[in-house]
């Protein structure tokens, strides 16, 4: 257990709680500027088509319509929109239903909507392909010349690589299978789901001379700033990005969005500020969601359950633009001498597959976690015992972890959940309502890296903390304030966090990869050392004096791996006649190192679990195979979780001591969703004795499997 600290580790309501409950919190959509125009985007109704003609003249003739952009007068490449090919704001060819064809700025939002209908577009529809595996078959329409296999891309090497599968190998899987007593095979499918954060995409752009200010919800003002500067080819000091409050994102608001650039270009063309608001439907089909996967596993074990070899052949559907890795992850949570993983990331004519909370994990743990459960079941080994035998001791069996509470998460979780008492063999309950329990393990990287912080201590004793974070909903502002208060040694009430504005804050890594606490919190701790030294040497400042300290550390882990771990346990009730699944009890065990704020950290876990249950049971963006049109964009169609569906989630932290990061804190935001779908699928199996191999586990599949 970690040593108790003064401020860090105390359950603390958010420093901006009052703003959030009184409606005073200012989100980007609340910005209203004098002379501001409203913008709307015309989008392709076809999944794949050439734009033969686009004629905005009838729209431009309407009084109040101030600017129209199309591919004919706007050739801007959205620099972070695709890592493989130049993706323009308006592409010709259009490659998915929802690809922008034109944008209108008008004096009124209704006028802008009406004007869209007056833009004449002639399309030549092309063949299209929706499924990743079909897209690789001979004869499939080529979305880009040279075929649909997309280039390898990784976050450590962000440039476009070769068009080849991503391959990871260790040991010798063929030998591993030969040495195994039993070999298991399985095929698992996950579907495209949308982040569906409550705040839709919006951007307000204003030019003052040659300086552009963009108010936009972004999970990284610094990266958004860089992307806008790069895409529009304007110097960085001429761009200001502001995001004071944002309504979630879960990976949907990484970097800049094309809407930021379109708003800026319309504002430039019209000579007036522009607000571009995306509708909920546009957010579902034209931003991005979790990539769908097809996962073929082959796993060899000894009869005592010891893993010998894991082979994964996977396909991920990325839509027509490559914004993220497309990986299928989870194998690293297990120790195993021989691994072969081969992932094909494929262009398709669907909504873009990119970051959504724990991007490659929940779907990977669904497939792999189901396989592990199947093996334990077949070998008649208790799943808890099976996991205690096989969980990862060293990262990829070779690199020590800075800390690991995974064993404790599994052991204590099983006890708190009363696993043994609840356990009964798969499918043994009586019809029609059957109970079952399941578990899965997971985690998420907690790397260190570059961020900056500027601290100012004034003569009133107020500590001003300038950090380039945005609080996506994690409570990051509060976390930063707690870390600063602890590190400098002042009361939390004396801390003022200045964030979300590139003109007032230094670089921060951005709210992705669960990195804000480690990176930017780490920078605060570094700056605080300097500030405290100044304080000790010079005493408190007087009058207009201030003590100022800054730090831009870029720590790197060497020879160690840093990972936050989790083990989840769930009991479900399955109605085999109605096909419904209801979680009854949920225990989430997390090792995130030291917990900076137990209140908000537990909220993160609870939310991640419930989000994951939605992915397990309901959510899927369904495409009409004949037309390539998504048929259920929106909350109702996606069947996201509601108050009626959400179980009470019991959260426990195993606070391992970790020598890295601010006070030993590891990642919190993404780990909670990682094991959920696997645990739910295993609980459903335990209930009905049949394994659902395709997400989501909707009623039709449950009834089909039960009868």
């Amino acid at each position: 257990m970690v040593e108790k600290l003064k401020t860090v580790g105390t359950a603390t309501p958010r420093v901006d709680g009052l703003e959030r409950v009184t409606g005073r919190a200012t989100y980007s959509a609340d910005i209203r500027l004098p002379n501001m125009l409203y913008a709307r985007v015309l989008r392709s109704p076809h999944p794949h088509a050439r734009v033969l003609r686009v004629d905005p003249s009838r729209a431009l003739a309407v009084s109040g319509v101030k600017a129209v952009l199309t591919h004919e007068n706007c050739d801007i490449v959205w620099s972070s929109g695709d890592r493989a090919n130049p993706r323009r704001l308006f592409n010709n060819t259009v490659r998915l239903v929802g690809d922008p064809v034109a944008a209108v700025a008008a004096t009124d939002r209704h006028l802008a909507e009406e004007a869209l209908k007056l833009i004449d577009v002639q399309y030549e529809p092309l063949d299209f392909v929706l499924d990743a595996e079909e897209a690789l078959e001979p004869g499939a329409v080529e979305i880009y010349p040279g075929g649909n296999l997309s280039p390898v891309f990784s976050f450590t090497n962000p440039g476009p690589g070769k068009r080849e599968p991503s391959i990871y190998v260790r040991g010798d899987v063929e030998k591993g299978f030969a040495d195994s007593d039993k070999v298991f095979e399985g095929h698992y499918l996950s579907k495209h789901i949308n982040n569906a954060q409550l705040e839709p995409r919006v951007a307000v752009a204003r030019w003052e001379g040659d300086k552009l200010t963009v108010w936009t919800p972004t999970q990284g003002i610094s990266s958004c700033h860089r992307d806008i500067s790069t895409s529009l080819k304007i110097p960085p000091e001429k761009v200001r990005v502001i995001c004071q409050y944002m309504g979630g994102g879960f990976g949907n608001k990484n970097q800049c969005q094309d809407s930021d650039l379109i708003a800026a270009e319309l504002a430039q063309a019209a000579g007036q500020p522009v607000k571009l608001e995306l509708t909920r439907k546009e957010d579902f089909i034209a931003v991005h969601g979790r990539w769908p996967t097809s996962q073929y596993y082959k796993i060899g074990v000894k009869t005592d359950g010891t893993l010998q070899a894991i082979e994964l052949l996977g396909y991920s559907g990325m839509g027509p633009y490559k914004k993220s890795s497309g990986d299928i992850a989870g194998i690293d949570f297990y120790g195993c001498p021989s691994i072969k993983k081969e992932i094909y990331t494929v262009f398709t004519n669907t909504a873009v597959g990119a970051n959504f909370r724990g991007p490659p994990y929940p779907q990977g743990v669904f497939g792999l976690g189901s396989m592990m459960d199947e093996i334990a079941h077949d070998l008649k080994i208790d799943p808890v015992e099976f996991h205690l035998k096989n969980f990862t001791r060293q990262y990829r069996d070779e690199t020590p972890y800075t800390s690991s509470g995974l064993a404790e998460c599994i052991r204590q979780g099983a006890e708190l959940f009363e696993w043994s008492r609840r356990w009964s063999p798969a499918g043994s309950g009586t019809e029609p309502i059957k109970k079952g329990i399941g578990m899965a393990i997971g985690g998420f990287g907690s790397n260190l890296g570059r961020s900056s912080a500027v601290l100012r201590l004034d003569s009133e004793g107020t500590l001003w903390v300038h950090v380039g974070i945005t609080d996506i909903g994690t409570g990051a502002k509060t976390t930063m304030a707690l870390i600063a208060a602890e590190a400098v040694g002042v009361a939390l009430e004396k801390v003022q966090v200045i964030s979300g504005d590139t003109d007032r804050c230094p670089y921060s890594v951005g709210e992705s990869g669960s990195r804000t606490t480690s990176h930017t919190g780490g920078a605060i701790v570094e700056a605080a050392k300097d500030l405290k030294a100044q304080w000790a040497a010079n005493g408190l400042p007087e009058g207009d004096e201030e003590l100022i300290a800054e730090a831009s550390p870029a720590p790197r882990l060497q020879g160690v791996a840093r990972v936050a771990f989790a083990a989840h346990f769930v009991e479900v009730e399955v109605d085999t006649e109605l096909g419904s699944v209801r979680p009854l009890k949920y225990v989430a065990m997390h090792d995130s190192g030291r917990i900076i704020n137990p209140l908000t950290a537990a909220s993160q876990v609870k939310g991640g679990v419930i989000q994951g249950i939605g992915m397990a049971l309901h959510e899927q963006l369904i495409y009409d195979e004949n037309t390539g049109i998504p048929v259920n964009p929106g909350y109702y169609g996606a069947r996201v979780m509601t108050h009626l569906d959400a179980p009470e989630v019991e959260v426990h932290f195993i606070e391992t001591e970790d020598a890295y990061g601010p006070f030993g804190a590891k990642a919190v935001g993404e780990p909670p969703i990682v094991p959920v779908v696997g645990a739910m699928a295993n609980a459903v199996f335990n209930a009905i004795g049949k394994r659902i191999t395709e997400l989501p586990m909707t009623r039709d599949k449950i009834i089909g499997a039960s009868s």
Partner: protein
Amino acid sequence: MKPITRRSFLEKSGTGIAVAGTIPALSIPVPQRGSSPDASAPTSQIQLKVNGQAHRIEVEDRWTLTEVLRDHLGLTGTRLGCDRGECGACTVLLEGKNVYSCSYLAVWADGKDITTVEGLARGDELDPLQQAFITHDGPQCGFCTSGQLMSARALLNDNPHPTEKEARQAMAGNVCRCSNYNRYLEAVLAAAEEDTSRG
């Protein structure tokens, strides 16, 4: 075929969409107007009482209540999440009942009494629900929070001591994608314990 506009859709469906879970018992009078909904922006003079303050405003008939509150009265605490009656971020109290203001035309609200999130506190004194939302960490991203508060307020006005099940039912039309449902429920039940006397 005439294109479907929001106005024609809402009028044909004959009702605004009440927040799911609160049985849509509101009967909403649909004002009869001569002009075609597709003609260029007919307007009406309406009176609203918002958070106790009377307003007389000229509105386009196609404007929703959300638009009028946010864009014309500056009450941006009411959020717009889906603009189609699915998420509940825009929930306000209309004559004490919670309604989706995105699916309620401003002209229908003529003469009505409306409460938004800005009207919950009395001066510096927070509504017990607001205080409980802070203490129990209800808002994560906070975008659904105003709507959650308004549905919770409607619930406690009708039913000062709800059971957990009643609270879930009453709030079912308010989606939280951060999925902080445990916290919101805790907060509502805690506020109900503390004080249910307010309207």
